[in-house]
């Protein structure tokens, strides 16, 4: 019996992405004046990275560290080293970061709202509408 649908899984992954994105935006904006800082980005490749994240190293000894592809499922952080916007070598576009911040906040709130709704409807169904 599967209680939690795929939608809930998708919403969870979306929330993970969004919260990582928030951390990255905070980091980028806080380093907007740092010389030589290169902007970070989050990419959300659900299918491929999810398939890859299941790859684990074989442990021949229980004391070995587990080898597995790093990063949480579907979310990877990349650094853009190709551009430079001013003489200090910094490439943070503060306007882009601020608009990303607003977008991300709304996206996160929407995802929370949806997952909350999902849980509530599950609760209602289980209690038989009482």
């Amino acid at each position, binding site marked *: 019996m599967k209680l939690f649908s795929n939608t809930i899984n998708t919403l*969870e992954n979306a929330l993970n992405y969004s919260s990582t994105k928030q951390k990255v935006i905070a980091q980028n904006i806080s380093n907007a004046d740092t010389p030589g800082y290169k902007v970070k980005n989050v990419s959300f490749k659900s299918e491929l990275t999810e398939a890859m994240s299941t790859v684990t190293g074989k442990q021949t000894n229980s004391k070995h560290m587990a080898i597995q592809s790093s990063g949480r499922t579907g979310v990877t952080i990349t650094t853009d080293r190709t551009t430079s916007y001013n003489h200090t070598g910094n490439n943070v576009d503060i306007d882009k970061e601020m608009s990303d911040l607003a977008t991300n906040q709304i996206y996160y709130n929407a995802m929370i709202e949806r997952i909350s709704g999902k849980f509530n409807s*599950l609760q209602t169904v289980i209690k038989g509408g009482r």
Partner: protein
Amino acid sequence: MTISIPSVSKVFQSNTAVSAPSTTPYEAQKSFASVLKDSIEKVNEAQNQSDVMTGKLAKGENVDLHQVMIASQKASITMSATIEVRNKVIEAYQEVMRMQV
């Protein structure tokens, strides 16, 4: 007007054919018991997961708030689902016990 008997009996036959591979009461009980055991184990697992997440949150470890909240919700929903199933089963049992033989 007459109803052709063979067709009726055919329906009858097909009906009995469907219910033919019936499970014995013992088997039904066994599979029900395993389902119950499985779901209770699931509840326990979900509760443990929620506890681990809550502990991490309290200790300030690397965990996201939404993950903690989702884990706790999942635990509470699996728990209430199981409780509801249990209530229904007990209700059915009591109904059977009250039956006039």
